[in-house]
């Protein structure tokens, strides 16, 4: 089975091509087709995973591009990490395809939607099985394309247009870093294959400074894709897309690709202390930074988006602190519970056609399945004991402790507290309270089903931590260790998580703590948080403004320097012509005089030249 692994991404690709070329005719069938083909991919993935128990690494490559003596290749690399990612991607993707059947059921452009979704699935599957950085980069960009298309799916909305554009551009900024990094790496090692790069690093072929530089450049790519500070602003805006898309792309898979990138090139990062420090600091900062913003947002999906940013920060933090398994573990659990949360949020939006949490306050309670699954997801993300999130978070804390990063540990714990607060704020506001709005339509089975399945996974995924560590260790080597927390840390983490829940309970459900008062007391803080630290405005006024300024500067150079120079030349030519023509007075004696003067000048010249004067 594993030797057919390279077929996995092809099915969604077929789906994409069929749908884009003849989707209009297929109408409703388009969804089923996409599900069918994604399902085949999923089954293949299961087959591959089964094989992977015995074979730890499998690679198949073909020449792709010959440049003189250099040969760039394409192919598929299956190792435990990739296998895990394959599973997560194809599984969540399949569920979301099914879910979309209901969610997008009434949309005219359904076939386009499924086409894009398939395209994304194809790209994401291709991404996680890339045997080299070039192929990785290509699929990396393609998932960006899928994300772009889906964010902008409601293309008649101005906001969707802006969000799509922003997503593409912001991630592209990161991609530029990645591209520079990989080309540098290429000239250092003469290869882009992951395995050969690792060998080169092992043999210490690279200067330490170069490794750090390359690692940081690769990390910039990850920052862009995973919405880390300072390139995070696109991710909340990306919520303009249909909610299943947010679940798949902007929660479970694509945004995690940045984390995956760091994980996949982990030996490179391990070889550079500074790179790791930067990864962990950025991760930690992003985690707490996004969590604080999440506290005050009023849009259902935006809160989840900031939560995603924050959780991705966690993963980066883990990786930066040497918690390889912890990071990947959290990636996996997060994929399940965050996808779950988004799907639940999606069904709220589907039923109520509104996503402003204050406007729909409490109305969620009419949707029973949604309410309970959302609660499970919320508990999981908050790190409630025995749910998946608690295990992966503890692993991260343990890794930090192991690494001696006490400051970062404190940040992480505080973020965990904030996480429970804002998540339960969401839960209490949406699903408890008056709830005047009646749902406009019922949530169909095809939507509830995936939610329930994900809920199951959100509950149980946490128990497989040590299996995961063994699994990953099979392929990767010494760094794949799951750190275990000391009891006090587990206790502390649980406390923090429960504390957040309790606080949220008192503020939002019991209303014993008046939030309005708080708002006034900390009005400036509130304003800053509500406006997301004014980062967008800051970019607007600095980067965008200066870009536009440069553009206009060049525009004026073009207009006044280039064009003027041209006008000057042509003007000179014309002026000579005019002068020459004016000299032509029609007086024959003038003609004679000119000739005489010409003769005189020439004679004079020779007299001077010959030295007779």
């Amino acid at each position: 089975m594993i030797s057919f692994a390279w077929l996995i991404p092809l099915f969604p690709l077929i789906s994409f091509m069929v749908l884009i070329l003849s989707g209009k005719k297929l109408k409703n069938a388009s969804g089923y087709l996409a599900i069918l083909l994604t399902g085949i991919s999923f089954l293949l993935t299961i087959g591959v995973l089964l094989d992977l128990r015995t074979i730890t690494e499998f690679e198949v490559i073909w020449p792709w591009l010959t440049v003189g003596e250099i040969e760039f290749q394409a192919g598929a690399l299956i190792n435990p990490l990739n296998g895990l990612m394959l599973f997560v991607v194809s599984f969540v993707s399949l569920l979301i395809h099914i879910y979309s059947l209901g969610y997008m059921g009434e949309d005219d452009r359904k076939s386009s939607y499924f086409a894009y979704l398939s395209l994304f699935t194809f790209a994401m599957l291709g991404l996680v099985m890339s045997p080299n950085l070039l192929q990785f980069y290509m699929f990396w960009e393609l998932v960006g394309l899928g994300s772009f298309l889906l964010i902008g799916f409601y293309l008649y909305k101005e906001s969707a247009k802006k969000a799509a554009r922003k997503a593409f551009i912001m991630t592209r900024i990161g991609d530029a870093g990645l591209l520079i990094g990989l080309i540098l790496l290429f000239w250092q090692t003469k290869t882009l294959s992951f395995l050969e790069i690792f060998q080169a690093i092992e043999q210490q072929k690279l200067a330490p400074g170069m490794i750090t530089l390359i690692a940081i450049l690769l990390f910039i790519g990850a920052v862009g894709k995973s919405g880390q500070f300072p390139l995070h602003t696109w991710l909340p805006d990306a919520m303009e897309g249909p909610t299943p898309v947010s679940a798949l792309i902007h929660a479970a898979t694509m945004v995690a690709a940045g984390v995956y990138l760091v994980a996949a090139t982990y030996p490179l990062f391990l070889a550079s202390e500074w790179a790791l420090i930067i990864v962990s600091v950025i991760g930690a900062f992003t985690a707490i930074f996004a969590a604080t913003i999440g506290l005050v947002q009023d849009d259902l999906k935006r809160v989840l988006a900031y939560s995603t940013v924050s959780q991705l920060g966690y993963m980066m933090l883990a990786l930066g602190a040497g918690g390889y398994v912890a990071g990947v573990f959290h990636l996996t659990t997060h994929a399940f519970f965050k996808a779950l949360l988004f799907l639940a949020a999606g069904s709220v939006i589907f039923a109520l056609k509104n996503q402003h949490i204050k406007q729909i306050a409490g109305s969620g309670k009419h949707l029973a399945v949604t309410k309970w699954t959302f609660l499970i997801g919320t508990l999981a993300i908050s790190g409630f004991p025995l749910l998946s999130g608690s295990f992966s978070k503890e692993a991260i804390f343990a890794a930090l402790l192991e690494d001696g990063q006490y400051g970062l540990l404190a940040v992480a714990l505080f973020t965990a507290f904030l996480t429970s607060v804002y998540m339960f704020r969401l839960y209490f506001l949406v699903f408890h309270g008056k709830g005047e709005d009646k749902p406009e339509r019922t949530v169909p089975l095809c939507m509830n089903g995936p939610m329930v399945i994900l809920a199951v996974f959100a509950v149980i995924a946490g128990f497989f931590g040590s299996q995961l560590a063994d699994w990953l260790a099979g392929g990767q080597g010494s760094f794949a260790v799951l750190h275990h927390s000391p009891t006090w840390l587990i206790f502390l983490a649980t406390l923090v998580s429960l504390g957040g829940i309790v606080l949220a309970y008192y503020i939002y459900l019991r209303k014993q703590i008046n939030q309005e008062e708080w708002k006034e007391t900390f009005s400036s803080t509130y304003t800053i948080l509500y406006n997301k630290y004014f980062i967008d405005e800051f970019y607007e006024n600095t980067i965008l403004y200066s870009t536009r300024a440069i553009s206009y500067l060049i525009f004026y150079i073009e207009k006044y320097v280039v064009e003027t120079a041209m006008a000057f030349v042509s003007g000179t030519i014309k002026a000579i012509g005019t002068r020459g023509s004016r000299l032509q007075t029609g007086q024959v004696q003038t003609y004679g005089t000119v000739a005489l003067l010409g003769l005189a000048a020439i004679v004079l010249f020779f007299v001077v030249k010959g030295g007779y004067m």
Partner: protein
Amino acid sequence: MDLETLLSFQWGMMAPEFTILITGVIVSLQDLFYGKKRLSNWLAIIGILLAMVFLSAQYQHVPVSILYDTYVFDQVSFFFKYILLMGTLLILLMTSTSRDEETEKVRGDFHYLLLAALLGGMIVVSSADIITLYAGLELLSISSYILVGLRKYNRNANEGAMKYIITGSLASAVTLFGLSYIYGLTGTTNLYDISREMSVIDTQLEPLAVLGFVITFVGLTFKISTVPFHMWTPDVYQGAATPITAFLSVVSKAAGFLLLIRIFVAAFTTEPGLSDDLTVYEYAIGFAGVLAAITMIIGNTVALRQRNMKRLFAYSSIAHAGYLLIPLVALSAFSLETIWFYLLAYMWMNIGAFAIIHVLIQNHQTEDISMFSGLYQRSPVLALMMTLFLASLAGIPATAGFIGKFNIFLGALSADPAHYVLAAIMIGTTVISYVYYFNILVQMYSRPKAESSPIQVPKALWLTIAICAAGTLVFGLFPNLALQFFSW
């Protein structure tokens, strides 16, 4: 000189000249007694054809000189006579069915004067003696003066002729003045003797030699219409009837260039030259480079402002003369070949263009550029031909004009030292010339047609245009035909 010596010369070699002379006499007698204009035309054409046949017999003939080296038949004279004869033939064809009322009245004069001018040109081409040269030159000039003024009831023609003769006489006085110094220094008028004397010239007299060189050169720029004696050109071209303008720009100019080659290249390039190891030519010719540069610039820039087609072509002809000076400045083994080829190409394209202008002027009674407007719709073939001629004049590939320019270029850059500046000015001004040539193209293809009446094109004119087009194209695509022919 007794009869025996006189008969010992190979007079047969002069058969072309005699043919022209006799034809001229016959035509003038015919005109006097019968006054059948059409007959004159055919007689002249037959005469020229005959002359060409005689001339062809001299192909690859060893160089011969008669009359004590005053009259030579060599490669150069052979090839240039071809241009002169061919050019005149084309112009005669062009006028053979002319409807122009004014030329109608003076048709007979026109023919024998043209033949006389042609004869003058042929004498210039073959002369190796300053006196013959001068006589030939003046025969050509004086005939041309009259030709220009032939339309005696036309004020422009009068004025043009008057300006022409005044400038021309001034120029010939200057030329003669220079020539008199050359004679004074060498004591001979034979070009070969002059060149021999020049090589042993007294150091003190060197300045005088240079002076003679320069003054003569400047005087002769009149004939080829380059700076400083160029200003008559537009006025005269505008004043003269179109076929005569064509004659002046092609035949007369070709003779003028040969004159320069004969006098200066033959007489002033002998080693050892001046005291600093340069020949007089090498020492002094630099100024001709400056003249060439100014000529090219003036010709091409002023042409930009012209709307009168004949004036425009006058300036264009000034510019082309400027290009042609370059091979003289950068004298090398193939300068002669270059000049000849260019003149040949220039003959095809310029006479072709003038033929079309001639047609249009007759159809429209205007010389403004607007006469070309909508030509493509009225007569696509004519427009296409004009495009070809203009492309050639502008030096676009696949035309003889391009190869001509390429030759000049190659000459300028393969000379030692290479004349990069001149080459650059030449090509730069060529680009300027695109503008006014392409202006005509725009008129032809993109402007609404001026009149919807069909254009009357006489058959003989079609023939002229066709020959010119064929020449332009064939020599553009297969320059070797000409180049091989030249290097026998």
